[in-house]
């Protein structure tokens, strides 16, 4: 188990339990009562911590190293997932995965950011930061889904589109912009689920849909709290403040009408009960798809454009 800094009281209690158990083994004494009492303390300590999470702590949870990523969820909720590769123009981006599969017998196209789970695979996945070919691969899959009349489900989890030299040369801006206009016009249902980090254009590039859902401990913003701090406060030290100011949590986004639903996570975060999280996600995909499938392609596109046209706060 990996504990975040704000979970320190919980981590300490777990450590005490471990020490007790070592002692019990060595000296052959019964410590079950003490363990039980410590476990109760863990429960109440966690409950308190998780009932008053700050925005920055949610950001930390969204980046928890044990948090499940796209391919994990696809493995759990999908029958016969077949991964597909390449943008047919330049290469195959590893930070965005795509492929078709079935949920309870129904075929759909899945697209998602993918992060790695250890040092090597994190590098391989470029830390979930796509290059233009990732967005172009995503678009290719969406057009295929449209051709064969299959819904599209996107999983969003990125610290941002990759800000590299090559990415610029190959038109990062154009790739994202193209996805936005094409997704707004796609004649099949699109469901987007933010499962981790929703950083700016890199997230939105596969994030425009008929329904946008956010898991409880995720964030969505025009800029990461760290970068925002560095630009507006001219220092890296104001990330907590920046997170508060950006109002970037699922609850905030739902309040602004920017996302349609908050998907509840297991009590101590998606990573503590990933299987349960996967089942919740599956249930929600089915629920929203059922509603969207009553609409004609024309109605779908019209409603989607209407939905995005109405977002804005001005006097």
């Amino acid at each position, binding site marked *: 188990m990996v504990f975040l800094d704000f979970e320190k009281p919980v981590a300490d209690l777990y450590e005490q339990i471990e020490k007790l158990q070592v002692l019990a083994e060595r000296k052959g004494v019964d410590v079950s009562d003490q363990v039980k009492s410590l476990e109760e303390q863990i429960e109440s300590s966690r409950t308190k911590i998780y009932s008053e999470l700050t925005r920055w702590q949610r950001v930390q949870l969204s980046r928890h190293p044990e948090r499940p990523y796209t391919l994990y969820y696809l493995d759990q909720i999908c029958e016969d997932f077949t991964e597909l590769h390449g943008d047919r123009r330049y290469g195959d981006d590893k930070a965005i995965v795509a492929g078709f599969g079935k949920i309870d017998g129904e075929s759909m196209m899945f697209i998602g950011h993918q992060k790695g789970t250890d040092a090597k695979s994190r590098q391989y996945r470029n830390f979930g930061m796509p290059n233009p070919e990732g967005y172009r691969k995503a678009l290719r899959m969406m057009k295929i889904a449209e051709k064969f009349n299959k819904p599209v489900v996107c999983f969003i989890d990125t610290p941002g589109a990759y800000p590299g030299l090559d990415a*610029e040369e190959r038109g990062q801006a154009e790739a994202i*912009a193209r996805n936005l206009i094409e997704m707004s016009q796609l004649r099949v249902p699109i469901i987007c689920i933010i499962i981790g980090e929703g950083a700016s254009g890199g997230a939105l590039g596969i994030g425009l849909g008929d329904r946008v859902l956010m898991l409880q401990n995720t964030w969505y*913003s025009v800029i990461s709290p760290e970068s925002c701090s560095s630009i507006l406060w001219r220092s890296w030290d104001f990330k907590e403040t*920046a997170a508060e100011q950006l109002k970037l949590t699922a609850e905030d986004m739902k309040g602004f009408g920017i996302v349609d639903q908050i998907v509840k996570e297991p009590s101590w975060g998606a990573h503590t009960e990933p299987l349960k999280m996967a089942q919740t996600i599956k249930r929600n995909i089915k629920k929203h798809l059922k509603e969207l499938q009553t609409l004609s392609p024309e109605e779908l596109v019209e409603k989607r454009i209407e939905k995005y046209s109405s977002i*804005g706060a001005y006097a």
Partner: protein
Amino acid sequence: MTWLQRIKDGILTKTIEKKETPDGLWAKCPSCKKAVQTKIVVESNYVCSCGYHYRIGSDLYFDLLFDNGQFEEHFSHLKARDVLSFTDLKAYHARLDATRKKTGLDDAMKVASGKTDGRPIVVACMDFKFIGGSMGSVVGEKIAKAVDLCLERKCALLIISRSGGARMMEAAFSLMQMAKTAAKLGQLDRAGLPYISLMTDPTTGGVSASYAMLGDFNLAEPNALIGFAGPRVIRETIKRDLPEGFQRSEFLIEKGFLDKIIDRRELKESLALFLEFMYPNASKATT
């Protein structure tokens, strides 16, 4: 007299304090450093004889592009709102008030309609001096309304971009303007109406990753900085210096992302040719 003289502009120079267009009798070109009579700079549409394009605002573009300088401004009633009560080193609402007072502008975009070479056109033009030309809800809504106006009048849309990207103080709302403007441009596209994007210095971030890159024709002024990530961020990521001319118009046209680079002194004539190509033959005759 100071001991040390700053050679390069520091990143701490406040954007709004930078002078963008010359005033007074003489103007010193920021590029070639030569002093030229302001009158001459103005006569050449704010382009120095060395080719440097001053960062001009919407009013000057409208004067330059519309026949006889005649146009009608639209949607000027739209005003930014501090919906998040955002405060960094300064409260957003105070920043808005101060910027409005200082610039005489309401937000970072103005929309106007009129004729260019006899053909009807709607022009949406950004103003960099309004919080770095940042795109917030007002910019998004003005573009949405400009598209509706084009659909109603069946005329062409020109968006002139000059922006550092999305406006951080409107957080997710400004991010969503990328989706909003793209969705509206999709409607314009489906209606078969022309959309020209002109990118000027600079066009980066959420603006380049939405409407600026989506023109039927993507045009740019010479030597404009155009990209998704800013040069500083890229430098920090790759930890080495960027090649000369990286992310400039001349670089982008080589990489295949621009149709044409147009010198501002020839902008109107050039634009007229694009419009002539895009419009049905009848449209000029009926005006």
